[in-house]
């Protein structure tokens, strides 16, 4: 599903390498947790998978495609197969929960009616059934995170990436949110989570980053 081949990443003007010589492989259906201190390169690793950043050296393969050498016009179609949960959630506060989750389906050009059913199903799956009309500002932190997850999975992607999905949540809420990821893993979705709270994902394979290097 994902393969890193001696990947290095240096941001322009960034001084030290964000990642160096990272080499690993994730099979389809695996649950993998990327750990490490703040600034260890967890976010960079996820960004490379989603083609948000390009590797400086080495190759990143996702579903057999070399992501770093994709034409810009091909990147949107790669991203439609990946569910992304961002560290800052990136919810649109001028739209309802329903419209937020609808966005990936509109982008993919889904027929509106079927899309609507899928949105409701996704909201139901993350425990937000009945809240489709709520505005994000009216949701609690945990609910906002659930909403972001619903948006990431509404496309039914084979790969789910999440950057610190439980940060800023209290312990109970964090456990509940982590449980949603475990559920998706159980139904066969490949899940890659960057987190420093690895205890929330028991049974996950661990990748540990230290100053941009895998340990």
């Amino acid at each position, binding site marked *: 599903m994902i393969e890193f081949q001696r990947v290095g990443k240096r941001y322009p003007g960034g001084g030290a390498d964000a990642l160096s010589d990272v080499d690993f492989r994730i099979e389809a259906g695996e649950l993998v947790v990327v750990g490490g201190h703040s600034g260890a390169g967890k976010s960079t690793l996820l960004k490379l998978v989603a083609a948000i950043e390009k590797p400086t050296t080495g190759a990143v393969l996702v579903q057999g495609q070399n992501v770093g050498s994709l034409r810009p016009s091909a990147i*949107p179609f790669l991203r439609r197969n990946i569910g992304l949960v961002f560290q800052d959630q990136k919810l649109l506060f001028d739209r309802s929960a329903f419209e937020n989750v609808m966005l990936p389906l509109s982008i993919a050009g889904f027929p509106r009616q079927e899309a609507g059913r899928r949105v409701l199903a996704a909201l139901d799956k993350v425990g937000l059934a009945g809240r489709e009309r709520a505005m994000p500002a009216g949701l609690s932190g945990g609910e906002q995170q659930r909403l972001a997850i619903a948006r990431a999975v509404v496309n039914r992607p084979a790969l789910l990436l999440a950057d610190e999905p439980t940060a800023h949540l209290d312990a109970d809420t964090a456990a509940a949110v982590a449980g949603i990821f475990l559920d998706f893993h159980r139904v066969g979705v490949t899940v890659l989570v960057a987190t420093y709270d690895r205890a929330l994902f028991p049974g996950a394979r661990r990748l540990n980053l230290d100053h941009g290097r895998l340990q």
Partner: protein
Amino acid sequence: MTNAVANWLAAHGSAATQAGRRLASAPLNALLAVLAMAVSLALPAVGQMLLANARGLAQQVAPTLEISLFLAPDAGRPAAEEIRRRLAAHRGIHGVRFLPREETLARMKGAEGLGEVIDALPRNPFPDAFTVRPADASPAAMDALAAELRRLPQVEHVQLDSAWTRRLDAMLRLGRLGILLLAGLLGLGVVAIAFSTARLQVSTRTAEIELSRLLGATDAFVRRPFLWAGTLQGFLAGISALTITLAITLWLREPLADAARLYGLEWRLQGLTAADAMGVLATSAGLGWLGTTLSLRQFLGNIR
């Protein structure tokens, strides 16, 4: 194939809806931009309306454009009859009127002060004459026809009063050029307004654009609602410009008709023709689209 078309239509449908919602979400901004564009468009539209009316009025005021043919005094009736037939058969001529010399003499005798002078003459000084109404009244066509008529046998003199129509034609062409220049300049202004409006919209939607790209949106998907909004705004500006033009037409109509009546003319100011109105709408929508396209090319690339 039909599926692809249906998808394409659905994509544009939802983009257009979204564009409408975006305009409605900042109604004051949209209104101001539309108003500024409308005023810029209304000026040349009103100019075009006035010019078309001037043309119509000129045609009404101008003496019916005619060419006069005077035969040699000794031409005789059979020669005149032969010429009449040739004129009537000519394709460049719409109407022919024969003025026999006796009739002219009688008419002139009736004129104040001329009677005695004419009586003193030994014989009728007037020749047989024709007036000819050409099919094409443009100065060039009139000139060509007159030259041709001059070559007819027994025709001694051909008179063509084209100086007046030439002057009028030159004035109207100058007016048309002026309106085109004005339209060009103000059209540039409309593009600039659309450009900055789109820029403002892009800047207020940075987060949404960025997110859409992260979720797999193509450039076309991101651009579509903006293009629709820009085109829609241009179209609305076109409608407003037509409304302004209509208001000015109605407002000027009575006073101008009164003034015309003082000159003995039954004349009414006409609004823009349907073709001109369509032209205004198409142009305004097109300029809105153009300004938005240029703006997106400039500013959308920065948001990745």
